[in-house]
């Protein structure tokens, strides 16, 4: 058995092959044995795309290791392909010399044709550059389950567990976790549980007995900080972060949401948290969702709405209302490929512009971005803390990769979370609806039902202090400035930026959001190549941190990697008058470490 530091495995097959379940099980087991992990579910928009087609291929990639794992990996070490289409789609992302584990039974001439293979690649030298392990997964699973009362069709569905068993053997993983999971998931269907466990174990023993792998691997535990951990996706941590903030502020949470990929799991997760005082409205449309959240905030709860790009576009007017009436609200934007319907299941960072600028009028608001699935907890908590404190809506940016990707999350201590004061006004003495707190410029938050504080709010411009409708030109100018200044004051909440790598020198990499892992590792690689490179990763993308300009000035060149065609970069260039260069990719996939490293080298030395 060889010991390796980290491994990237990709499972791929039809949407109905159980690829996501297989990948999730492998992930949870890796986490439980102490590896650090990062995952990338990569699936088509169709629920059950036609079997065997290239566009119907569903993938799940995981990198697990004995070191700090920051990305799901640029390229796979092993590919588990359940059919010819999965092989075709993923071959280019498999390391030369890497392992291909295929289900030979799926390589029928029909499936080969559907996948566009003119000849069976298992029977010629197409795959000569890789180690190919051919297994009759379907036949062996049926054979293993011949005593099972299940129908053949249902037996065949267990072949993903047969494959998982083989991969568990390949990487010396215990079966226990998946066995427990199957017993619990199919508690009411013991025949199904038994068949799946049998398939899993048979796969494991088959790999051992038939010695199908040239080598097996051990990936030791990663040096992870002490504590209790849980494997989480970004959509789960987002939900937990919001609920935690509301509960710490003494508030109930209200979510208005309309189902949309890839944000729906935020709705699902929050709907299951009723005990924490969470009320969810599955609204009739995106606009109703945000409006109901505003109505709930108006009544004294923490109003939240969750959506993706098309929904954010629809919510623009209502978000403007929330900032005009100066009520708290968190808008979660789980970005996906755009524009329009775009690539619903693929990741992108192209909502930067609409988040910052997508409203009529002068309408700035704080925009915060999460950098990893676990970090969504902190970002969501901070978004809620700021919106409650400053009484202006906050947009929380995540994306499809963060939403569905997973990594271990160190469960916090309650005492470590920042306190949040909801601070409702109840005193009629000296009350005016648009009076302001000096430190935050927030106006009072008054719950309807409070005697003596009856007042009116609305989208028409209001007179400073009194809140009466006002068309006075100077008042409007002043109110626009006040709303802007309030958002700018959020800068006082920002800790100094951490500069990763060199503190001054050749190249500064400025990133935001889910590109963090790739940028961090890419910077490490460029440092190893001798470039004096540093990196800052922006938690807040509006307002920008107060020390960013000073840090930019310490470097000769600036690189801004983004999964869009250049959005943050325009703000950086506009704010700091610096000739920043972009690394831009909109291919529905996260940035690669290698791409970041190369972009740094190209910027420093000129393109090769």
């Amino acid at each position, binding site marked *: 058995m060889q010991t390796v530091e980290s491994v990237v495995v990709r499972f791929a097959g039809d949407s109905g092959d159980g690829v996501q379940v297989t990948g999730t099980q492998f992930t*949870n087991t890796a986490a*439980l044995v*102490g590896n650090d992990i990062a995952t990338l579910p990569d699936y088509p928009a169709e629920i059950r795309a036609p079997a065997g087609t290239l566009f119907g291929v569903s993938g799940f990639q995981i990198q697990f290791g004995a070191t700090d794992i920051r990305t799901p990996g640029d390229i796979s070490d092993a590919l588990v392909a359940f059919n010819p289409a999965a092989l075709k789609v993923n071959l280019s992302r498999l390391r030369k010399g890497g392992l291909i584990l295929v289900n030979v039974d799926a390589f029928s001439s029909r499936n080969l044709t559907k996948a566009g293979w003119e000849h069976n690649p298992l029977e010629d030298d197409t795959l000569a550059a890789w180690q190919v392990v051919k297994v009759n997964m379907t036949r062996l699973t049926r054979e293993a389950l011949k005593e099972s009362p299940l129908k053949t069709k249902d037996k065949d569905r267990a072949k993903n567990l047969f494959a998982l068993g083989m991969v568990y053997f390949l990487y010396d993983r215990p079966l226990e976790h998946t066995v427990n999971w199957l017993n619990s998931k199919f508690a009411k269907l013991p025949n199904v549980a038994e068949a799946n466990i049998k398939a899993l174990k048979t796969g494991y023993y088959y790999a051992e007995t038939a010695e199908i792998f040239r080598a097996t691997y051990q990936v030791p535990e990663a040096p*992870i*900080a*002490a*504590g*209790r*951990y*849980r*494997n989480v996706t970004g959509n789960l941590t987002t939900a*937990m972060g919001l609920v*935690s903030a509301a*509960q*710490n502020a003494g508030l*109930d949470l*209200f979510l*208005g949401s309309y189902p949309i990929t890839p944000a729906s799991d935020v709705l699902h997760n929050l709907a299951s948290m*009723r*005990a*924490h*005082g*969470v*009320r969810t*409205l599955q*609204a*009739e*449309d995106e*606009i*109703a969702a945000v*409006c*109901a*959240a*505003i*109505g*709930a*905030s*108006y*009544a*004294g709860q923490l*109003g939240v709405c969750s959506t993706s790009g098309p929904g954010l576009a629809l919510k623009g*007017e209502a978000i403007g*209302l929330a900032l005009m009436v100066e009520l708290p609200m968190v808008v979660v934007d789980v970005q996906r490929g755009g524009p329009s319907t775009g690539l619903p299941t693929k990741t992108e960072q192209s909502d930067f512009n609409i988040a910052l600028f997508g409203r009529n009028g002068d309408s700035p608001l704080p925009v915060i971005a999460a950098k990893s699935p676990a970090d969504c907890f902190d970002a969501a908590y901070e978004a809620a803390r700021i919106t409650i404190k400053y009484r202006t809506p906050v947009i929380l940016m995540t994306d499809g990769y963060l939403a569905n990707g997973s990594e271990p999350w160190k*469960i*916090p201590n*309650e005492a470590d979370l920042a306190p949040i004061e909801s601070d409702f006004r109840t005193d009629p003495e000296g009350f005016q609806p648009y009076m302001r707190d000096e430190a935050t410029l927030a106006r009072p938050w008054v*719950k*309807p*039902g*409070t*005697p*003596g504080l*009856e*007042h*009116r*709010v*609305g*989208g028409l411009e209001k007179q400073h202090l009194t809140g*009466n*409708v006002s068309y006075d030109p100077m008042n409007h100018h002043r109110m626009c400035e006040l709303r802007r200044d309030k958002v700018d004051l959020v800068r006082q909440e920002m800790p100094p930026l951490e500069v990763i790598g060199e503190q001054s020198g050749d190249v500064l990499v400025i990133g935001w959001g889910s590109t963090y892992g790739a940028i961090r590792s890419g910077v490490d690689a460029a440092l190893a190549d001798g470039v004096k490179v540093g990196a800052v990763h922006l938690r807040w993308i509006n307002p920008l941190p107060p020390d960013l300009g000073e840090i930019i000035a310490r470097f000769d060149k600036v690189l801004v990697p983004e999964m869009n065609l250049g959005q943050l970069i325009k703000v950086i260039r506009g704010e700091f008058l610096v000739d920043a260069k972009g690394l831009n990719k909109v291919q529905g996939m996260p940035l690669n470490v290698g791409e970041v490293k190369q972009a740094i080298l190209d910027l420093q030395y000129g393109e090769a």
Partner: protein
Amino acid sequence: MNDIIQLTRKDLASDQEVRWCPGCGDYAILKGVQSALATLNVPRENMVVISGIGCAARFPYYMNTYGFHTIHGRSPAVATGTKMANPDLHVWIVGGDGDMMSIGGNHLIHVLRRNVDLTVLLFNNRIYGLTKGQFSPTSGVGKKTKSSPMGSIDPAFEPISLALGAGATFAARTVDLWGKHLQATIKAAHEHKGTSFIEILQNCIIFNDGAFDPAVGKKVKSDKTVELVHGEPLIFGAERDKGVRIRKDLTLEVVTLGENGVTEDDLVVHNAHAELPGLAQLLATMEYPDMPVPVGIFRQVSRPTYEVGMDAQVTQAQAAHGGDKPSLTSLWNQGDTWDVAP
């Protein structure tokens, strides 16, 4: 709270100058609403008036209650969130036919479907006022306006019918200038648990003056409208000699009592509490000039309300935790966890 809340109409008037056009029907509605709300035994601070955009939507600014002037068409959605967040509040939604029937049509039907306990006041003047006189979804075919110089080809919504179709548990019609009728209808809506929908026929003196006069004007209303009273036959006319009868093909006709042997026993008897909305829908088809215009309560049935259903789920979920929120630590520790030793 058993204490009687002593309020007068003036207690519910804000200090803001009312800015509707002189002679607008909204003045009478404002006065009627203030008068009615003063008698509800509800503390002023528990009243919330929520509106969208349009002439009618300025309403909250003139009420000395909590008020929220939101964006065009969305007041039912905002109000749903407000009521869910605090079911103790008494929520009124105010909007015109453009706000509620056109841009906000989707939210209107869904608040009715959910049966959130609040009252919708639809000021129907069959015209766009604030944008200066375009046809609205209730104007009807042939209406000549600035945006339909050759006559509108848009068929009209019948608001009561639309509300009933969306599952309204309370649907009523009244008229801006009928002070007592308006107040009685508002009080009945307030007592109803669930979404109460009131269509108020409202005169726009500038862009659609007299639109309802041929039916609801002082001199003609006895002959051109019929009051719907639960359990009572549909009788109308200055002489109380006309009635509404149902034909075998489920259409309605006007008959005269005493003519051709027609008696009260032949008339439709209103049943506002019928489980199914069929009769109410049939009555909603009665339109001027062929039929008397029905006013009063078309439908009033009891159904679970949305915010109570949601609160029940929260209560049920908290029952296992002594009626309180579980700790955050317990939330975070669900599912598989593992410990990494120092």
